[in-house]
């Protein structure tokens, strides 16, 4: 029905087709026999019913045959699954960070991206990391899916031979913007991938902790890679939380422990909002949507983000 693009497609689709064919034959067959009996033995044509209490031979037949077929289907389903569980040791290790409501991918050289770029024909292992609640990584074209669970080290792996871009969806319900939690998987020819992978000018503060050169650039990268952008826009539009655009220095009404008060958005307020998101919630926005970034962002990174937010004023 739609093309596949990984080393698992054949195994999964074989199991699928096998079950489909067996099911379709039985569905059509049983329905046809049922309708034929209703027609053939209708009262007008067959006024006197014949009592038949059962048949041991038939009961054995229609127990044994479906059991054998079920075991065949089970076997193919199992056979298609086993390779998905065994990742080769030399696979390219990428950490897929899932959080409400974005994916980000971290590569061994410190490169970070919200698009999963992978080399064609090479094994890639995705180590799944959930930052807040359950998510699930699903790439339909690759026939793979695995839950990302806080505190558990689940993984996925695959080899794709078909350059192109494919969708990745979150398939474990995760709240308000679940349906917008998706990403692109781009399979690239080797040279193209290497060019992208080794180009570290767009690199974030991940590995060496040093900010980029232009003012606020490091912060701009961080709000991408840490997923802030999934809820806070930079163009003034309303998503889940207040937009970053023009907010710095503004007076806003917040709810603090149930009471309203007016504060000015300054460096302290932003820092507090990053570390304790429920402390002062801007009026009109829902509490409980954001988790603390205490373990994820270092103080200098929060400063980078603040610098970036400042650049969004008056543009």
């Amino acid at each position, binding site marked *: 029905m739609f093309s596949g693009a990984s080393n698992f497609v054949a195994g999964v689709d074989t199991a699928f087709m096998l079950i489909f064919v067996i099911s379709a034959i039985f569905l059509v067959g049983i329905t046809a026999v049922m309708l034929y*009996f209703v027609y053939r033995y209708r009262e007008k044509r067959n006024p006197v019913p014949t009592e038949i209490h059962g048949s041991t031979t038939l009961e054995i037949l229609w127990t044994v045959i479906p059991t054998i077929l*079920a075991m065949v289907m089970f076997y193919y389903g199992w056979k298609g699954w086993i390779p998905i569980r065994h990742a080769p040791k030399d696979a390219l290790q990428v950490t897929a960070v899932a959080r409400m409501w974005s994916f980000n991918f971290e590569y061994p050289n410190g490169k970070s991206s919200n698009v999963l770029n992978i080399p064609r024909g090479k094994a890639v292992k995705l180590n799944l990391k959930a930052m807040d609640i359950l998510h699930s990584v699903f790439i339909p074209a690759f026939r793979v899916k695995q839950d990302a669970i806080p505190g558990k080290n689940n993984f996925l792996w695959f080899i794709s031979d078909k350059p192109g871009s494919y969708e990745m969806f979150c398939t474990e319900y995760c709240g308000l913007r679940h349906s917008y939690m998706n990403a692109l998987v781009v399979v690239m020819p080797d040279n193209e991938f290497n060019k992208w992978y080794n180009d570290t000018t767009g690199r974030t503060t991940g590995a060496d902790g040093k900010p980029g050169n232009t003012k606020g650039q490091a912060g701009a990268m961080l709000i991408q890679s840490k997923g802030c952008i999934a809820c806070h826009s930079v163009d003034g539009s309303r998503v889940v939380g207040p937009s970053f655009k023009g907010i710095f220095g503004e007076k806003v009404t917040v709810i603090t422990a149930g009471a309203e008060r007016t504060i000015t958005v300054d460096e302290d307020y932003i820092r507090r909002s990053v570390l304790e998101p429920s402390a002062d919630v801007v009026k009109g926005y829902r509490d409980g949507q954001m988790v603390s970034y205490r373990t994820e962002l270092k103080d200098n990174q929060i400063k980078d983000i603040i610098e970036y937010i400042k650049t969004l004023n008056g543009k």
Partner: protein
Amino acid sequence: MGPQTYNSFFTVHGIIMIFVIVIPGLPAVFGNFFLPIMIGARDVIFPKLNLLSWYLYVLGILTVLTSLFTFGGAPDTGWTFYAPYSFKTTTNMFPAVLGAFILGFSSILTGLNFITTIHRMRAPGMKFSNMPLFVWSIYGTGWIQLFATPIVGITLMMVIAERFLHIGFFDPALGGDPVLYQHLFWIYSHPAVYIMILPAMGVISEIIPTFARKGIFGYNAIVASTMAIAVVGYFVWAHHMFTSGMSTTAQFTFSLLTFLVAIPSAIKVFNWVATLYKGSIRIEVPLIWALGFMFLFMIGGFTGLFLGSVATDVHVHNTSFVVAHFHYIIFGGMGSAFMAAAHYWLPKMYGRMYNKFWATVGWATFFIGFNVLYFPMFILGYQGMPRRYYDYLGQFHNLNVVSTIGSWILATGLIITIVNLIRGARNGPKAGMNPWEGRTLEWTVPSPPPPENFDVIPDLTSTSTAH
């Protein structure tokens, strides 16, 4: 409608349909009415306990409804209440969970009451070996209610304890394990599917012989498959969790058992079809609903095979494929069986007959609408559309539109059917004692049955069969 409203809608739809409508539906409505009559009893054995079940049911519904209208807003976790999201959301989780807990007690007490009634209240000569198959199905269901429901009860209590006392059972932030929650939830909720479908199978096992005007084919095989489903159905729950990262040993075992639990259902279908053979078939409305049941239930059952097989399940898990499969089983299956039962027993319950023409029109509209609504979801799911999505990518658009049109047709069919039933119950022509020439005991009492059902408890020791 915004995403928050949408998320609340599918959550509350799930909670109300599962806990309030489908689980108690057939047993509470038709079980309470016909179980005693069919075994030749005046009432269930504990009428006051039965009343308590009813009070708990009403209290449970009120508690669930509270979650909709009080501050905090309707719950938005999905009916599965998966941790740790269910601990983080600020919506009204507590009343929804408490409501499900109370409804669980209602279900346990009903199961207990029915099991005891069947053991202790059968009329002379009514043996387990000749008991009507609907009664057998209620019996199997009763044991599942009794054994499985306490598990969800304690799980929901753990959720409440975690939320208010911060005891870390499930939330990794408190040192808990979210996968443990999934196990506990499905240990109940998978058998719960059999609570929903077993009584439906029982209804079909009554209707087909009545309209074929002969005895059921393979009585013993149907009884054995009912009890096999009730037992094996406990040990398949983790097929809901193949993507959670559990061990391959567990995946192997649960996949194998899931394929095995399909066999008893297949045996039932074969025996129902065989019952039609050499019958003298009267095509009446209840039979039409029963035949529709068989078709939709088969599609639901066969698509379940894709979900039992690990490789294919991992691909379609949590996509609209699962939504379609589940609705084929529960709405197409249990829903059709409920309508079959309503059209079969309404003349007995109200003593009046509905309009058969409109009943047939209602069924046909329902049947077409149902397939137009749910079949596209199989394709969408295979193509990768996740479930519980407020918004979807462009390539999924056309089939979603088809599905929506189907929902309008289905709704029209349901309205025609229900209006026709109500009109029939109120103003239909008198139906008489036994309009279908049924052979079970409920057709030997006046329509509607008098209080306490029988003046004299029937004695079946001389008759050979009751089923």
